[in-house]
């Protein structure tokens, strides 16, 4: 199994130096995880390091495609509140 970085990544570099397997590399338009190298940090750390420092909800998925940091888990903003705020801004 391997983790995956998707397009919501903001290229902040926080994860890259933490990866014990050297599986993360800079790429355009966003950073990528080499699925062959990724161990999900098993044997090195209790928690996957990239997903533990990533500031963007939903940017890192597990092997099943489930976000490790689901909406609301990092910012504390309830997802429905965020949607309402975005709808209000679009309506201006």
């Amino acid at each position, binding site marked *: 199994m391997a983790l995956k970085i998707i397009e919501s990544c*903001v*290229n*902040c*570099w*926080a994860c890259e*130096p*933490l990866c014990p397997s050297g599986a993360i590399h800079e790429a355009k338009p966003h950073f990528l995880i080499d699925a062959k190298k990724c161990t999900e940090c098993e044997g090195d*750390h*209790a*928690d996957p*390091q990239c997903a*533990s*420092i990533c*500031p*963007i909800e939903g940017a890192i998925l597990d092997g099943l495609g489930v976000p490790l940091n689901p909406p609301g888990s*990092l*910012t*504390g*903003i309830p997802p429905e*509140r*965020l949607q309402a*705020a975005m709808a*209000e*801004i679009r309506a*201006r």
Partner: protein
Amino acid sequence: MLELKVINDNPAPSKKGGCSAGSCGSNDEQMSHLPEHIREKVYNHPCYSEQAHHYFARMHVAVAPACNIQCHYCNRKYDCANESRPGVVSELLTPDQAVKKVMAVAANIPQMTVLGIAGPGDPLANPERTFDTFRQLTEKAPDIKLCVSTNGLSLPECVDELVKHNIDHVTITINCVDPDVGAKIYPWIFWNNKRIHGRKGAAILIEQQQKGLEMLTARGVLVKVNSVLIPGVNDEHLKEVSKVVKAKGAFLHNVMPLIAEAEHGTFYGVMGQRSPNKAELQALQDACEGDMNMMRHCRQCRADAVGLLGEDRGSEFTLDKIETMEIDYAEAMKKRAVVHAAIAEELNAQAARPAQKNDIPAHYRPVLMAVATSGGGVINQHFGHAKEFLVYEASPAGVRFIGHRKTDLYCSGGDTCGDADTALQTSIRALEGCEAVLCSKIGYSPWGELEAAGIQPNGEHAMEPIEDAVMAVYKEMIAAGKLDEAPALYGAGNAA
């Protein structure tokens, strides 16, 4: 070392509305009270000296993208050229690109004396990029002062490295010293390979910040503490923060207003946390002032800002533009030295001028006045060209700097980004609480609208030193009987 504390060891009881010498935002008055070795360190640093910020420029290079904590006022979205606030940048630079940019700016803006690394993440969470930049600059541009701004989490482990690179100014953002308050500001930190949420994370952060502060002051590094004023969260608590950091040897405390808009996508913005109004900010700065040197001239600049505080010339130095610039730094250093010497001479001449004695009866109330200046400590800007105004308070005790008011706020996105006010309406609203505005020139139409809003325009003091002109206008107001009866416009609750 501990000598830093002498600045304010015997704070004079602060007369309301007066300038308690030695604690009013590091102005001329205060500068002359500083021990020589500290004066030497701050006289040309625009972010540490109110006086210096009229003359000297600074720049930030955005080499540090990663962060190790989350703050409720921050969102890791970059690249909005219209926004000016901490943490926002347009172009992330490698250390090599940053060094080239710094040298290009130094050669073209000789009054640029300070290079800071302030993000867009946390510089000390990117130690390799941050220290590589410092290492190269120490070698290639020895006439530039280096400084860094940090959330403090990794500070203790970086102190030795900072001292090695001769970094003698460090800013730590400290919003609280109580983990219960911290839990409302910091949702998580990354610490020892784990994401730690809530109060527990905040407690570790606070401990690291305080430890880092103590280690730096013990090594003689000048420390400025930045705090974000968040109404209902840490407003009262910041008085305690000010006392604590002063006791540990911090040199200057900079309380900044929270910036929170829903469109920034931050927790506070989306959840409707309000920002403080100008009166609340000033009241808190005044309350902390008895204990601590307060900074009031901060412009909350971007992590890639270039120029005098309040201006941003970053667009003149984008990567593609600096690629084509040929820089002879040895030659530039000569030119810079001449410019720096001329400014130092001007500052010395000002310091040598005897303080003017005001024979104004003490019963006259203080008055706020706005000033349009493009630098140099004089009134030299056209009203309509001012992107911001400096606000001074005149009172029988003298003139003191209060803060600045932006006319284009932190977003210049125009109609698409909010209310479509006219520029003049925006300026008038920004000047709320001020009773006069001093500028080099002003058009006929704004003159009338300002007067109608109770703000007297004044173009009579063009090219005069700001503080002399403000005092002169105050005396004119007294002579004209304007302060005999009229109630102060400036007081609790009227500033939005």
